[in-house]
């Protein structure tokens, strides 16, 4: 690790995609929170967590907060996650069913 978490913003399939790599914990979650808030502003967002190596409840609260914010703004949050730390935490806490989780950016971008 040089940097514990890196964020990349891109536009794919007409959607803004925020790709997170590395570790989301108490040290890095505030940085993610701020960037997600900047990007949401009433726009749909794809949060790509496929390259996340670690996430704990601090990170999960950022994800759930982003989902609530999307609902309040009348827009959507789509999450990309594959088998790994993110899906493990979703399963452990039972929140997976409350979120729109996809296996690829293409699938996520098709989400209304």
């Amino acid at each position, binding site marked *: *690790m040089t940097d*514990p978490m890196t964020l990349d913003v891109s536009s794919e399939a007409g959607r803004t995609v925020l790709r997170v790599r590395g*570790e989301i*914990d*108490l*040290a890095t979650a505030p940085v993610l929170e701020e960037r997600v808030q900047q990007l949401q502003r009433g726009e749909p967002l794809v949060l790509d967590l496929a390259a996340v190596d*670690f996430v*704990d*409840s*601090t990170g*999960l*609260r950022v994800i*759930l907060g982003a989902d609530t914010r999307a609902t309040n703004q009348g827009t959507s949050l789509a999450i990309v996650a594959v088998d790994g*730390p993110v899906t*493990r*935490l979703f399963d*452990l*806490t039972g*929140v997976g069913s409350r979120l729109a989780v996809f296996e690829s950016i293409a699938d996520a971008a098709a989400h209304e």
Partner: protein
Amino acid sequence: MPPHMSEPAASERFHLELPSDPANLATARLFVATTARVLGYDEDAVADLKLAVSEAGSAVIASGRHETVTVVVETTPTTGMATVTVGPLRPGDLTGDHLNPGDVILALFPGAHIDETRDALLIPVEPEPAR
């Protein structure tokens, strides 16, 4: 008995103490991960231990009462059990908001509990073959 251990030998103790700073949680996770691998735990167990230690360490930092976070891994050769202790923590530190560290830790390790005599969270970890 975890596979890498060549003989039961004596109980072993691995001890880490770090300043209560979120930047050090990654070090705490690496410590428990490497120690668990040396003790023969597989990568699923290692991932669960990293998560539990990160949650508990975050709770120590969030309590705001302590300058350091302590993580201890101890083995009990007779039973093959290990215990992971994270502190200082007292009842209440792990609960609070919905989706708090305590929820995650108990989902991972149902036997985890605050040991008030040690002022810490104690996580019993089954020997590898039993997991």
